[in-house]
């Protein structure tokens, strides 16, 4: 399951500072492990069933400190049955059964919990949550559990578990782990994992190594890497140089290594900014593209555009509610179905608005501003009255949660990646409709010369309605995407309306490509400013830049030149 794999990969470096606490408990763990590693590991049966049951019951102790001690003791034993218990505890699946005070691993199915005996590992009855009391953990315990599991898993037959353990050890970076790690290196066959292990070893050897050679070789290994962890390792080493009295040549070497690592990291930072800019751009694009039609093409200053997005988001919510019972949670289908649904719902609303209000206002763009503003107020209140003012929850399907994480610290979250892709598809779709379909042709005809279009037999009213419907429908689709990153509330639309107008105007009214370019450039500029100026100032700068830009290009990025404009 991808998530689990990443849940490990995703872990941010150095989660565990080398506090006294950690040192001690790892010390204990290693001491014992050292023994049992020599005596063939993973096969030891140090615990009798009775002992295991008793010690497990101590996991329910009040004091976290005691719990930590117990966890270490269990881990140190190396009993293969321990790992599943600790894992369950980490996942919050470890309970005490009220009936017989036994510790059981309980997994929830619907309303029922199935109990698995920690000793035998077999199902031993089931019950409701009432008869179980959960063994509580906090962040400190999570840390302890994870380290314990790491040391246990270092020799696990499963490669994934092993590599996860290595990452964890690299995070902890406790010299006490070095001997254990070395032993693991001896046994490791997998090349890539071996490399990681050696890297981990290097991170520790830097400080722990006895000889200058060891340190220098460690630095060589590290210098070739490009991760924030390594930067921290080196910078800490350099910082503590004279305190620890390291050899000058070593320190110098470390300094060089540090610089090279930092240099490479900064380029990755830039890459990250660009990506985030594109991602923001894609969101802006989705929000604006519907407006590019209702406002850009039809000239309706559509203040209700934001509400169309909102309607799309609420449609997504309703689809999920409707399908929630049928589909497993995290299924992609509800979202997939939401897209056409949102298009139809928002589109229909759009058509109604066009027929009932806007069609009376063509050629009076400023009136459309007032009317649609009224419409937006009504729609907001309507949603509020129907669904209530509070947020609605739209769960993210599995394929949209999580992220691809590069060791260089660059994180590409799936939902952002999908939204970028989605925005491109949507735009391509619109372009296709405008260019290749009869409707697109009629639409352009009507917007360019209504009377002429009418006289050649195009039903202009019909085209108007559909055009507005199209724009609204696309806004609805945007709502589906935005429901994944933003909150689904009656105010959703207001969040995006201003930005949408900025994008369309910046790109040049009536020009789809202008909107695309506008969205991405605004996004990227914003993201480059943000780290320097902070989010608020960045936004202000972007707005000022927009104002000044319009001075240079009064008709936006892509403006038609010549007489056409004046006509």
């Amino acid at each position, binding site marked *: 399951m991808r998530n689990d794999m990443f849940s490990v990969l995703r872990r941010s470096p150095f989660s565990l500072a080398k506090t006294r606490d950690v040192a001690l408990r790892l010390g204990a763990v290693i001491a014992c492990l050292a023994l049992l590693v020599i005596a063939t590991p993973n096969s030891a049966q140090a615990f009798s069933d009775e002992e295991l049951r008793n010690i497990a019951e101590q996991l329910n102790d009040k004091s976290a400190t005691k719990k930590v001690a117990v966890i270490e003791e269990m881990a140190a034993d190396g009993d293969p049955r321990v790992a599943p218990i600790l894992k369950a505890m980490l996942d919050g699946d470890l309970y005490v059964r009220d009936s017989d005070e036994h510790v059981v691993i309980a997994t929830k199915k619907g309303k029922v919990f199935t109990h698995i005996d920690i000793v035998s590992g077999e199902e031993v009855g089931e019950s409701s949550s009432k008869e179980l009391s959960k063994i509580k953990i906090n962040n400190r315990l999570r840390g302890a559990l994870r380290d314990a599991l790491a040391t246990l898993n270092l020799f696990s037959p499963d490669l994934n578990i092993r590599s996860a353990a290595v990452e964890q050890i690299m995070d902890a970076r406790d010299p006490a782990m070095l001997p254990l790690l070395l032993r693991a290196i001896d046994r490791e066959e997998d090349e890539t994992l071996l490399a990681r292990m050696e890297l981990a070893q290097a991170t520790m050897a830097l400080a722990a190594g006895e000889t200058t050679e060891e340190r220098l070789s460690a630095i060589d290994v590290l210098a070739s890497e490009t991760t924030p962890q390594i930067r921290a390792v080196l910078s800490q080493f350099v910082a503590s140089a004279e305190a620890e009295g390291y050899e000058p040549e070593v320190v110098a070497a470390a300094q060089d290594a540090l610089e090279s690592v930092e240099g490479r990291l900064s380029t990755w930072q830039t890459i990250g900014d660009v990506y985030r800019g594109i991602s923001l751009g894609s969101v802006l694009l989705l929000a604006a593209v519907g407006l590019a039609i209702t406002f850009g093409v039809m000239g309706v200053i559509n203040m209700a555009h934001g509400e169309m997005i909102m309607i799309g988001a609420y449609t997504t919510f309703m689809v999920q509610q409707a399908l929630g019972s049928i589909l497993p949670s995290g299924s992609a289908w509800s979202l997939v179905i939401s897209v056409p649904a949102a298009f139809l719902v928002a589109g229909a609303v759009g058509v109604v608005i066009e027929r009932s209000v806007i069609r009376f206002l063509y*050629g009076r763009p400023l009136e459309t501003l007032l009317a649609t503003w*009224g419409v937006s107020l009504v729609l*907001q209140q309507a949603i509020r009255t129907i669904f209530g003012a509070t947020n609605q929850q739209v769960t993210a399907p599995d394929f949209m949660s999580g992220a691809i994480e590069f060791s260089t610290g660059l994180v590409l979250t799936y939902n952002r990646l999908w939204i970028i892709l989605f925005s491109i598809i949507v735009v391509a779709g619109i372009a296709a409709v405008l260019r290749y379909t009869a409707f697109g042709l009629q639409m352009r005809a009507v917007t360019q010369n*209504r009377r002429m279009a009418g006289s050649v037999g195009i039903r202009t009213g019909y085209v108007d309605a559909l055009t507005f419907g199209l724009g609204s429908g696309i806004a609805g689709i945007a709502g589906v995407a935005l429901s994944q990153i933003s909150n689904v509330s009656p105010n959703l639309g207001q969040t995006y309306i201003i930005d949408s107008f900025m994008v369309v*105007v910046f790109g040049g009214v009536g020009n789809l490509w202008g909107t695309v370019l506008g969205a991405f450039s605004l996004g990227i500029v914003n993201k480059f400013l943000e780290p320097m100026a902070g989010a*608020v100032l960045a936004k202000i700068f972007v707005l000022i830049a*927009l104002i000044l830009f319009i001075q240079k290009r009064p008709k936006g990025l892509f403006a038609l030149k010549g007489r056409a404009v004046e006509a």
Partner: protein
Amino acid sequence: MTDYRQKYQMTPVIGWLLKDRGGMILLGILIAAAILVPASNLLLPESSAFHVPTWMVSLLGKYLCYALLALSVDLIWGFCGILSLGHGAFFALGGYAMGMYLMRQIGDRGVYGDPILPDFMVFLNWQELPWYWHGFDMFWFAIVMAMFVPGLLAFVFGFLAFRSRVTGVYLSIITQAMTYALLLAFFRNDMGFGGNNGLTDFKDLLGYSLQSDGTRAGLFVASCVFLGICYTVARGITQSRLGKVLIAIRDAESRVRFTGYRVEYYKLFVFTVSAVMAGIAGALYVPQVGIINPGEFAPALSIEIVIWVAVGGRGTLYGAVLGAFIVNYAKTFFTGAMPDFWLFFLGGLFIAVTLFLPKGVIGAVPAFGSADRQSLFTTWRKRRANEGGKA
């Protein structure tokens, strides 16, 4: 006797004022209100049927400020076709100027008892007053700033925009960008304007306690007077040849250019004047509501102002005043009477007005359907025909 003779022979002011029926009525009412309302509030006993309660006085005062704001928008939108979606910015700037004065007046009566620094500076431990706060302890300076700062902003912004011939929705959107940028800027606590909380907890104005009925009445009168003056000025402008040029620009900008007028200068002039009026409105508004904060920069507010004008009737000046009162009264009433559904009514009102009263409420009153308004509507119809629904 053809009417252009009277139009140009009479001493101007009286001449066109007499011709302006709506204006006369408005000014008459303003004068009456300026006398009666405070009188009945201060002199008549609470029990009297004609007693105007204090909350009503300050409420009306607030409406008057909104009316003045709407007037300033109508001057540029109704007569010169400049649709500003950022006029709230000028209003708020004027308000902040006044707010800064009132803030300085608190003196050491602030919670921290600092004689110079406003409270919000003290608890974010600022050491001394930022330079731009100096001088605001003087009333005249604050008043000058309340007009100068919005005026200057409008002048610079307008100079850039009109010189490079930014028109139509492009202009509207960048005005919106302007007010939005200011909104964000004033939200920042580092700006030294009290961040989101803005300026509040005012004590007194020129030594008169803001809490006292007398001061309220005074502010109410002041609002009436300034609305009257600004109306007269605005009417003066629109009646002059300059006003005719403005209308000409609204209807056929390029023709005006080819006739040899520097369109950008005319726009710049009226835009600046309008901004100054908005600034005055803001300065009058703050002491009556007791708070000024970045919320006044919100683009939504600026859009609402335009809606007031449209509801009342664009291009008539008095229509704008009427519109401001109608919409804001409706808001006051419905938010109390039906708090859960009032947006339906307000939204519905806007839709209805645009659909059924294209000339606004005032346009529905035959007596006020002036020739100007007439043609404004026909222009729309023609433009629709010509442009075939393209903006």
